[in-house]
């Protein structure tokens, strides 16, 4: 199948490249009845649980439920509706907008060749029930969600940080977390290895990628004119051959004139 052709000539001029507040339009939703299998699944689901909203997006069933029901709904999906795989579980940060996390469970059925997504929203201060007893793959996914987003999970047998170190402060995937880290993050390795009193000696991180300072404190930035630590910059060219001028004991000197340059590959 070929991807649909889109003219990308003026793509730089489009508003989403310049408008910081551009909101990407969401993919059109279809009604659940438009797909036979999903319609049947949804009918069964509706008899047992309270469903806030349901629709089909990109050929996948999306069901929005109450967060208290998450365990029962997933168990129902696994046992009754034949979705044996939990392929992904994570959270989205809507804290600034609604003070809530949106948690989603992405399910896969091989027999039906369908994917379904179960979503629910919880407040920042509340917690979601762990589903690792239903889907084993939820174990690490929930730990990751706890680690990076700070979503609390109840009744998980081993809820500790998965990716960040145990003594890390903050949850890096929240929208409010600065990309270059808060203070604790910026000094993390210094504090841990040497202790806080070494902060002054080692100094803050240099994070400006465009920084050019030919006469910095170490004076060795000028390529070809490097000087030792702390000395004044000079115009003298530095000798950067890999052998001393008087040759090396036991090692043949490399002579440029003896080398052969190949213009084509052999």
């Amino acid at each position, binding site marked *: 199948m070929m991807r649909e052709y889109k003219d990308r000539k003026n793509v730089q001029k489009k508003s989403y490249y310049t408008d910081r507040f551009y909101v990407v339009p969401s993919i059109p939703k279809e009604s659940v009845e438009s797909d036979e299998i999903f319609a049947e699944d949804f009918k069964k689901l509706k008899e047992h649980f309270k469903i806030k909203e349901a629709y089909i997006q990109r050929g996948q069933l999306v069901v929005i439920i109450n967060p208290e029901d998450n365990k029962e709904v997933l168990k129902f999906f696994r046992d009754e509706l034949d979705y044996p795989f939990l392929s992904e579980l994570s959270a989205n940060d809507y804290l600034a907008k609604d003070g809530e996390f949106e948690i989603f469970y992405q399910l896969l059925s091989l027999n039906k060749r369908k994917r379904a997504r179960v979503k629910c929203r919880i407040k920042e201060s509340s917690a979601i029930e762990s589903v690792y007893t239903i889907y084993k793959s939820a174990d690490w996914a929930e730990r990751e969600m706890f680690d990076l987003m700070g979503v609390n999970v109840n009744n998980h047998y081993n809820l500790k940080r998965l990716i960040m*170190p145990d003594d890390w402060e903050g949850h890096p995937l929240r929208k409010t977390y600065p990309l*270059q*880290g808060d203070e604790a993050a*910026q000094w*993390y*390795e210094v504090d841990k*290895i040497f202790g806080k009193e070494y902060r002054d000696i080692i100094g803050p991180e*240099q994070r400006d990628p465009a920084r050019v300072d030919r006469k910095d404190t170490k004076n060795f930035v000028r390529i070809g004119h490097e000087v030792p630590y702390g000395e004044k910059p000079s115009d003298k060219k530095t000798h950067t051959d890999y052998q*001393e001028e008087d040759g090396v*004991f036991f090692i043949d000197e490399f002579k440029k004139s003896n080398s052969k340059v190949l213009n084509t590959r052999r």
Partner: protein
Amino acid sequence: MAQHKVNYLQDSGLPIALTTVDKLVQWGRSNSLWALTYGLACCAIEMMASGASRYDFDRFGTIFRASPRQAEVMIIAGTLTKKHAEFTRRLYDQMAEPKWVISMGSCANTGGMFNTYSTVQGVDRIIPVDIYLPGCAPRPETLQYAVMMLQKKIRKESAFQKQKPKRLV
């Protein structure tokens, strides 16, 4: 018994070469730089390529070791994360003196393109570095050049002095 006289001091009179012990020791050291395999990210691929047959590090006496106790040069090849920084320092401390460090690639030098909360912005924040090797990723030739420059540096040092404590910043 041979009747002729050998001029021992003459060049190529006998297989004898005169040198200082200092020079000899440092020559030996510089030609058996065993490197700690320390591949952290994509630069490690280039480091492995330098060790493989085409670029053949063995001819410099640089053989990769998987233990800091047997290594004298640490080639930091790749992105050092803050979570891992502690272990890098520990491995560096475990290496026997004399020891040297090559920081390979932009990530190890300055954090490179990973200007984020989780990357150490230059390994020289935690261990002293002897050679900074720029590039993303540096080609195997460049790593060879770095090793040769390190050999030159070692030949200049004195063998029997304790290594000067290196400045960290």
